[in-house]
Structure formats: C-alpha cells, structure tokens
C-alpha cells in the first residue's frame, strides 16, 4: 500500500465527488435552461474525474476496494474533501462563486499535475484539465456578469464571496502528505499554487466589482479529515443510501 498516494488521490477524488454531487442537486432547477445544461455538464465532468481519482486511490491502497466502494462506503471521517466543496448550494450566485473559487485552484493544480512523475496522475490531469479550463471560463464569466449586473445581483454575489472566502484557503495548506508528493515529483506543494490563484481571483473580482474580504483566515479540517462540516454527513446519507441499505446488491 502506498499510503501517501492513496491519501493524495482521495483528496483529489473526494473534492470532485462532493462538488459534483452538490452541483447535481441543481438538476431541473436552474434559473435558465442553458444553466441547467451547463450545471449537469459540470457535474458529469466532476463525477467522471472522481471515477479516475478514486480508481487510482483504490489501486494505491491495494485492498481490493473499488472506486465505488470508496465513494459509497466510507464514512465522513475518511473523506478528504475540502470544506469549500461541502458548503450547501445556497442561491445560484453562491453556487457559482463556490465553483469559481474551486475552479481557480483546480486549473492550477491540474495544470501542474500534467507533468507529474507518476504516469497515471499525469494522464488523469491531462484529461481533466481541459474540462477544468472550460469550467473556470464559465464560472468566471458568470461571477463577472452577476457581480457587475444589477444592484441585487451585485449584492448577492458580494454576500457569496464574503461567505465563502474563508473556505478558499484550505486547498493551499501544506502537510506531510503534500511534502511526500512534492519530494517524489508527483504533485506540486499546494502553497506554490497560491500566486496563480490570487492573480486570477483578483482579476475576476475586479471585473466583477466585488470586494475580496480583507482576511487571510482559512477554515481547515476537510482535507485532512480531522473536522468536516456538518453538511457532509447529510450529503452521504443521500449519496450512500442505496449501497448501505442493500449491501448484497449489484447495480
């Protein structure tokens, strides 16, 4: 068992799983038809990426568990998603702000992973980065349009940014797993991605006429699994219900 790689792949896959799930909650309920299509498409991309990352995690673990086992049969404390992606959808503005803050990190991360020393990591990243680039273009455009838009949309987007900003920093925290990944050339040290993220966020928020909160504070605990939000447990009760209620079944 390669426990650092397992941990790393779970972090990647749990982020996309949890965010994909959140986005899929919008099904049929978006403000316009084009957004219904785009949100379903984003969720679909993220679930596809989850299959690859959790597949790699299962392989690194070497305990005969599948990607589905990891998604459907682990409890909250074994999840490694950051707190940002666990946050509820709120209104459409909050959903798109969460998406943008995630995408802005995700693109930087995947772009760096393309040159990973680990072949599978590099393959997954090369495939995923195209989707992530599309996601960030879309979420940035939406944040800009609604930030700059009407008085009400501006106020709602500012509220979303203020609410979510303290959750944006967790992905950049370095720990021993990250150090091990960096030492092996598998993944960049998270803190090194911050400048690219900050530059993109500053640019988009300037165009959106939104004020980035003046605080460096970041909630932590999701990425390490030490302390998730209360939201994750509720999500898992839905996501995992069939598998847990009918453990003998094949689907």
């Amino acid at each position, binding site marked *: 068992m390669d426990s650092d790689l397992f941990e790393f792949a779970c972090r990647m896959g749990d982020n996309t799983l949890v965010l994909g799930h959140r986005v899929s909650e919008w099904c049929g309920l978006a403000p316009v038809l084009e957004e219904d299509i785009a949100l379903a498409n984003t969720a*679909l991309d993220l679930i596809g990426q989850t299959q690859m990352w959790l597949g790699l995690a299962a392989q690194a673990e070497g305990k005969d568990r599948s990607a589905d086992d990891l998604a459907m049969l682990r409890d909250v404390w074994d999840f490694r998603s950051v707190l940002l992606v666990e946050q509820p959808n709120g209104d459409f503005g909050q959903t798109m702000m969460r998406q943008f803050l995630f995408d802005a990190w995700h693109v930087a991360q995947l772009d760096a992973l393309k040159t990973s020393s680990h072949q599978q990591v590099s393959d997954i990243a090369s495939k995923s980065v195209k989707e992530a680039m599309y996601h960030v273009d879309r979420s940035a455009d939406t944040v800009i349009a609604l930030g700059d838009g009407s008085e009400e949309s501006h106020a709602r987007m500012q509220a979303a940014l203020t609410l979510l900003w303290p959750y944006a920093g967790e992905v950049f925290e370095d720990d021993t797993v990250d150090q091990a990944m960096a030492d092996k050339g598998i993944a960049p040290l998270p803190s090194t991605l911050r400048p690219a993220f900050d530059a993109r966020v500053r640019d988009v928020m300037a165009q959106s006429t939104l004020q980035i909160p003046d605080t460096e504070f970041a909630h932590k605990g999701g990425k390490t699994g030490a302390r998730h939000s209360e939201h994750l447990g509720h999500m898992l009760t839905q996501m995992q219900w069939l598998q847990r209620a*009918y453990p003998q*079944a094949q689907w």
Partner: protein
Amino acid sequence: MYAQMVKSEATAEDPDKLAAFQARIDAGEKIEPKDWMPQGYRKTLIRQIGQHAHSEIVGQLPEGNWITRAPTLERKAILLAKVQDEAGHGLYLYCAAETLGVSRDELTEMLLDGRMKYSSIFNYPTLTWADMGAVGWLVDGAAIMNQVPLQRTSFGPYSRAMIRVCKEESFHQRQGFDIMMKMASGTPAQKRMAQDALNRFWGPALMMFGPPDADSVHSSQSMAWKIKMNTNDELRQKFVDQTVPQAEYLGLTVPDDTVAWNDEKAGYDFAEPDWAEFYDVLNGNGPCNTERLAARNKAWDDGAWVRDGMMAHAEKKRARKMAAE
C-alpha cells in the same frame, strides 16, 4: 409521446392557398418558417412543439429525484448525461417553436401558469431506483415510438429537431433497460423493485399515446398536415408489441391479465389503461402535478434576479462598448 390531446385549429383561409399548401405537404415537401402557412397549422404546431419542449423540461424532475441517490458513480454519470440530453432536447424544441413567432419566455409563462401542458407521464412519482430503469425503458421507449415517425413531419425545424433528439433517445432507452436487467436479475428486493416499477408505470406509459382514436377528435387535420404521423392506437399497439416480449425477457409480469398474442392481428391484445385516471391527471389531479409545477415556478422565480443581472450586465457592456467607439 410527449404531445397528448393537442387541439388542432380549424382554418378559414383562402381555399386556393390552402389547396396549394396541402399539395406541398402531400408531395413530401418541408414547410419552412418563412413559407406561407395556415393559421391553424401554425397554432397547432406551437401548441404541440411547446408541449413537447415543456415535457423535456419537467421530465428532468422525476429523474433528478434520483441523481443524488444513484447507487454507483457510473450510474450517476449516465443519469446526469441523460438529464443533460433532455434539457438539450427542450432547447432544440423551444428554438423550433420560436421560428413560428413565439418566444421561449412566452411559452415558459404559459407552462408556469397552467395554460400549456406537458406530458401526463411526468406527474407520476419515481419511488425506487428501479423507476430510473422503468422511465428509460418505458417512457423514453414510448417517446421514441412517437418521435421516430415525427422525423418526417412536414415542418422543417420540427423535423430537424426530432432527428437530433432521436439520436439520443435510443441511448436513453438502452440505459433504462440495462438498469431493469440488473434489477430483475438481482436480489429478491431488487426484483421486487423492478416488478413494482413496471406495475406502476405500465398504465401511465400506455396513456402517453393519448386517448383512443374513437375519442381523439383532433387527429385528422393534424394527420393531413403531417404534424401527427400515426394514430394514438397505432402507436400504442406498436409499443405493446415491442414491450411485452421485453418484459418476458426480463422475467417480469406486465400488470394486465388480458395480454395475449393475437394471430389474426399479428399483435398483442391488451386492456385499455384507466382513462378516468388519465383525465384526472390532465386536469391537474395526478400524484405530482402540484409539486412539478411548484418546482418549475420556484426555479423560475428564484432565478429572476440571475436573469435580470445577466441582462443588466449585457446592457452595461454594450453601453461601455458604444462609449469607447
């Protein structure tokens, strides 16, 4: 079929023009948006295409009900892809309707305030995972029955929309049947879910084709105009003939004791669904009518600030560009 009980409009126009129009249709020509067309043709098509589009949109809800509970990552991805397709179908169809001079927003408001309908089938609840199988197998299966012939409909934009839609629908039906196969050959509980889903969806699926021909007063004009390609009973028979052997293959029982092969007509005999229930659903008393419409209305109302914000931004951008020039 997603268009049921579409009232076709009588037409009182210049008989020469009408005859020339009918001759074009009879010759298999496509009518395009800029061509002359009878008012009744236009109105009937708006109603039919609009109802079809609304059905795709409302149809997202019963399947969306299970996306967050899909049992595996692959099933979740497939269901997301399907629902994304359905929203896309709605988009093509609204675009086809717009060529007739009605906007998507106007059609939407008519859906939301109950002036326009969507297919009765989406007023039924999806209660177990097997319902995702039954919906794909039976509901998309019935939709295909109706939409394949509509690829040859006389109105060009509608015909082209149907060609795009049909390409995707067969994938929908296959994934549904695949879920049913897994369930029907699974644990006793899964098998029970599969049979229960068939029991609940059989009658409503038969109703998708609309009332019996004898009670279907609007058909003949629409058939002459090639807006409707087959009668309700023809399509229903075809559907039963296709579906009964599939149910047998699955080891499931169609909830109708009278189903039997009839050599003479080379098709199955079967019982009519409960038409009283059908009219109840049409009149707003289906199990989920209130919830479906409430969900669409809430989505529309909650999204108002987003649509307004987008418009305001587009307007500001335009003004800034003008000022810069």
